[in-house]
């Protein structure tokens, strides 16, 4: 087992959990930032940027209501697996 894999703080259940899940489980050299909209309400729109050592690593944007269900769950798990922070 990769020694970077930490105990999960909570289960990733829906696409809506994507941001918090990665916030909680990405290794320290990665950060996730939310930049949905300058306006007061973003409601279902999201725009998440993941940076690795200051460089843009991944970006996800869209509308939760128009997503294929489970897409962000799969992406979060894929990211953590690919960087060695989560088992498949």
């Amino acid at each position, binding site marked *: 087992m990769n020694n970077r894999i930490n105990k999960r703080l909570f289960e990733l259940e829906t696409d809506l959990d994507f941001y918090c899940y990665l*916030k909680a489980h990405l290794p320290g050299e990665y950060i996730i930032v939310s930049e949905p909209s300058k306006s007061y309400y973003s*409601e279902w729109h999201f725009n998440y940027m993941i940076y690795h050592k200051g460089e843009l690593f991944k970006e996800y944007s869209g509308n939760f209501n128009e997503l294929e269900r489970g897409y962000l769950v799969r992406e979060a798990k894929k990211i953590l697996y690919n960087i060695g922070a989560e088992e498949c």
Partner: protein
Amino acid sequence: MLIGSKLPPEHIDKTFFNSGRAAFAFLVDQVIKPRKVYLPSFTCWSLVSTMEKRFPHVEVEYYPVGRDLTCYYPKYVYKDELLVFIHYFGHENKSTLPESQGTIIEDFSHSYISKINHVGDYVFGSYRKILKVGEGGFIDTYFNPIYEESKKLDTWLRYQAKDWRDVREAENMMDRDWQIVDISSQSLAILLSANHDLIRLKRQANERFLTENITIGEPLLTYRLNECPLLHNRLLETQEERDSLREFLAGKSIFTSIHWPTHRNVKSSGCDTDDTLWLESHIISIPVPHNYNLNDMEYIAESIQRWQKG
């Protein structure tokens, strides 16, 4: 008289929730159970989206609100109807209420530190608007809810936040949620230890400074001595002027907001929204939090003067 060690516990005349919208949802769902709900056209999205998502079977009618925040209520509230009104921005709403056989509730989110006498059947609100607290809502009556389960990730994120972007994301997360959830111990401890008199005094001083020292536009409200301002709202002549000022201030790390963008359901409701839309396009909401002082307010006023000089 009964003496024993296992008697029923005491309770206070208040019920806590994780948000104002949860408190509102509880009142609608389990206490009032109305056939129809009247909401103001000038309102936060949380009430509108809670009705839309959680109570799609309940009829909603919007009533007009004037530029001076006068509410034009329906003439009568029938037995199975609910009317919601808001004490906007810490200022007592003195619009004359209609005759009612139904239920009238006060949204006190902006105003629970103002000293205002209640006239509604129930009072509810959110704590997050004034206190720097992760979450919190209340009804000023004792109930014993069976709360719904939640991971409360928005609350976790607020307390985990390193900057305003995480807090804004937590706000967005809350806008996607209508559960009736309990408040966290951390938030409850913070709000129970808050010094309301001190908060009121500091916010009053900050708001008064901006009222007296900003030289563009007009204040939306004149606060009374018993009132605790939520924000300093100012009305500018044009939307272009307002947007330009907001952008300039953001460049100076002064983040303002617009209260409120009008929800699509309000726009399409057939209610007279002329003044609501006018407010949306002319208002700038400047924060006056109690953890800021007059030096900070001076920086805001000076920055606005710099923008005026071009």
